[in-house]
């Protein structure tokens, strides 16, 4: 039962939001990609978050040994799954394009840049909130340490 656990929880939040931001920037970068190793156009990816009770393995083992498990386990967050958008690709008429089909249509990823930009802002704000939590907890720990002086 120490404040250091809270740092692990916030770190898990930062890591999850970072993963989400990475996927969103990947989506924006690939908004016009028509070729992928799996074949067909790029498909939009997104992260699914899930509560994770094992963010601080050291603390959980330590508390199990000392019988000091207060608070019923701290809930961190983790990326449970990365979903791939299975909507039909957007078909644009571009007969000169090397990936055009027999009718002259090219399958482009169904990506709405506005949607991804808004999600990206959400991820950035979520990251900032976790950084603020780290700063607040760090101050509390520092004040406790200052009691020794």
């Amino acid at each position, binding site marked *: *039962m*120490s*404040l250091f*656990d*809270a*740092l692990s*929880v*916030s770190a*898990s*939040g930062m890591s*999850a*939001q970072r993963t*989400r931001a990475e996927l969103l920037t990947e989506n924006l970068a690939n908004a016009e990609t028509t070729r992928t190793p799996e074949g067909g156009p790029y498909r939009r990816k997104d992260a*699914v*978050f*899930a*509560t994770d009770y094992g963010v601080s393995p050291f603390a959980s083992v330590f508390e199990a040994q000392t019988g000091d*498990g*207060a*608070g*019923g386990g*701290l*809930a*961190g*967050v983790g990326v449970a799954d990365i979903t791939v958008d299975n909507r039909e690709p957007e078909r644009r008429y571009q007969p000169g394009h090397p990936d055009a089909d027999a009718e002259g249509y090219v399958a482009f990823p169904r990506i709405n840049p506005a949607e991804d930009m808004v999600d990206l802002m*959400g991820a950035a704000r*979520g990251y900032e*909130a*976790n950084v*603020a*939590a*780290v700063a*607040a*907890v760090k*101050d*509390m720990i520092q*004040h*406790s340490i*200052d*009691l020794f002086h």
Partner: protein
Amino acid sequence: MLDGLASHIEHYMDLLSVRQKLVASNIANADTPGYKTRDIDFQQEFQSAIGNEPPAVIEAPGLKIKNDGNNVSMDRESRLLAENALRFQVATELMRSEIQTLRSAIQEGSGS
């Protein structure tokens, strides 16, 4: 030696750390579908016997649930984050003055 007030301050600081950990946990899960805000009943935990029992974690009441089943309010959490840090600072200053009192008693004794 450090009893009475000091043990109350210690209990207060313990509760504040538990609450701050839950706030950090809520902020980390602000985008987790289905996650419900967790908190402790601070007043009740503080008034109940200054004890060894870990405080009971409850679901924070009266928060609006969003479409994905998550009810973390960032305004509430940032307020609690700042409030807990400030309260903790007050508690450490009080504890420091308690320790200072004891220390001056020790030093006066060695001086004569």
